[in-house]
């Protein structure tokens, strides 16, 4: 379990992380979301003791990272896949990390095997693609077989097969009872992988909820309507309070926000309009996230008129 309490990081006048508190429980994949610059990486770095907190605490299983008896056996982390010496061979890179925690050298071959790099373990990491470096970084995170895993953008550079592999790895780790915290900007993947979400913006907590609740709470319900009399329909629906009508992607039709499908059907029937399609859109994490951050931006521009 990762616990962050009133965590704050200040760079001069800028608050990168602003009194952030949340807990990441074990046994599930927790997605860590936020726009660029929201403070996700800084938060992860403070959990790992790489950056010092200006105030507040971040602990793993009740201990500061620096107080972990064997850090790699408590927490495995992938922060920066590019963080390898290009002239060093992959297995030496892992061996140096393992040695620092007294992890036996046999474990290096095991994790290389686990991430599918067994055949290239003796190559210099400078010859690796970004996807291979991601896998090497994941191998490093798994060295100590830790109960807590922290992944910052682990899907960057992975090919489709790699993304599916990564998803099943994280699901398996959570199923084994581990704590898994992952950040990603790939919303569709996040929706497939994570059970729980922590969303931050400008260093502050915006949401800490289950995936279903988050999507239900933050996405507007939308309905796709297609009709030969699309312009008539647009005037009919668009004039109503609280209703937004946009063009739908892929052919003539309307994307209606703020009305249920049944209401639209009734209005069209009353006006004698012919409908060819009337579909409720399944709300997605991507939609919910966009809606939420759009709201947050509106809130911010109201709150800080001097900028």
């Amino acid at each position, binding site marked *: 379990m990762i616990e962050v309490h009133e965590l704050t990081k200040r760079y001069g006048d800028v608050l990168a992380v602003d009194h952030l508190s949340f807990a990441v429980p074990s046994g599930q994949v927790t997605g860590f979301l936020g726009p660029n610059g929201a403070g996700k990486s800084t938060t992860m*770095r403070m959990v790992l*003791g790489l950056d010092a907190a200006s105030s507040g605490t971040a602990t793993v299983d009740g201990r500061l990272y620096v107080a972990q*008896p064997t*850090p790699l056996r408590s927490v495995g982390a992938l*922060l920066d896949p590019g*963080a*390898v010496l290009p002239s060093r061979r992959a297995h030496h890179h892992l061996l140096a*990390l393992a040695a620092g925690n007294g992890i036996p050298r046999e474990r290096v071959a095991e994790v290389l095997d686990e991430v599918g790099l067994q055949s290239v373990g003796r190559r210099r990491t400078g010859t690796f693609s970004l996807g291979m470096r991601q896998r090497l970084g994941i191998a490093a995170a798994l060295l100590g077989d830790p109960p807590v895993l922290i992944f910052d953008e682990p899907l960057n550079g992975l090919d489709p097969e790699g993304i599916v592999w990564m998803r099943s790895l994280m699901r398996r780790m959570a199923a084994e009872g581990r704590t898994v915290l992952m950040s990603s900007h790939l919303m569709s993947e996040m929706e497939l992988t994570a059970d729980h979400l922590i969303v931050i913006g400008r260093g502050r907590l915006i949401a800490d909820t289950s995936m279903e609740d988050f999507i239900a709470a933050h996405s507007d319900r939308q309905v796709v309507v297609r009709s030969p009399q699309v312009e008539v329909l647009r005037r009919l629906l668009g004039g109503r309070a609280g209703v937004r009508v946009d063009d739908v992607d892929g052919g003539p039709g309307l994307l209606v926000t703020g009305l249920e499908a049944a209401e639209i059907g009734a209005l069209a029937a009353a006006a004698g309009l012919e409908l060819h399609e009337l579909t409720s859109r399944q709300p997605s994490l991507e939609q919910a996230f966009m809606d939420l951050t759009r709201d947050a931006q509106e809130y911010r521009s109201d709150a800080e008129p001097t900028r």
Partner: protein
Amino acid sequence: MSATTTGSTVRADDTRAREGTVASEQPAERARFRHAVHSEWVKIRTMRSSLFVVLGTLASTAGLAALNGSSAGGDHARLTAAEQATFDPLAISLMGYLLAQIALGLLGGLVITSEYGARTIVGTLTSVPHRARVLAAKALVLAGVALPVGLLVSATGFVIGQASLAGQGAPHLALSDGLALRGIMGGSLYLTLATLLGLAIGTVIRSTTATVTTLFGVMLIVQAFAPALPGTLGDWVSRYWPPMAGGQVVTGYRDPDLLGPWAGLGLMAAAVAVLLAVGFVVFGKRDA
């Protein structure tokens, strides 16, 4: 040095059943300083520059000893009596320390600047979050490399340099002379201090290029310009500038205006200790 490189062959029957388990099989041993030292040893051993530095140091020391020995030896007969009185076979044979100190200082710097350059400092500090432990392990491993390398290059330089002097019929020393032992041991200690100086500078400034530049300035440029400095300042620098004072340990002729060999080396050691202490403070406080 390379006894521990092999051994991580992939096992075909490597299927660990660990469904439903989280804890590691063996009871976790608390990570200690010796683990950090092992980690740093693996890193320095697998850094390509390490081998280049050692070979380069050896080649430049041996080469300079041969060239300097035969050229100075050839000139000896034409020197005045006063010049012959200050003729210093030890210093002539160990001249290569001027280059060796830069090479080993660079190795000391690279051990930390390469981590910042490649960002591997992130992995290093997640494996060993105790900052002081990391830096102390780096210093210990560097000393463990520099001391024998320093011994090897000093002995090689001495033997080749004295042979070259002998070949020219100039005064020369034997390995059995007390001065030889002091020069070789002292040279080795001096080069070890130079390596740690590189580590201290690299820790504080983090950039490889800036570290090399600083090492050149501190170890060669000041030395080259000291005679040109005005009177008292020049005398003071020649006497007390740590690398110059430390360099007295590889000279045989005693200039009464300069510190003695061991006093000079002690001054160098004190300066390196102070800079390393600064390195520990900075490294401990700074975000990775």
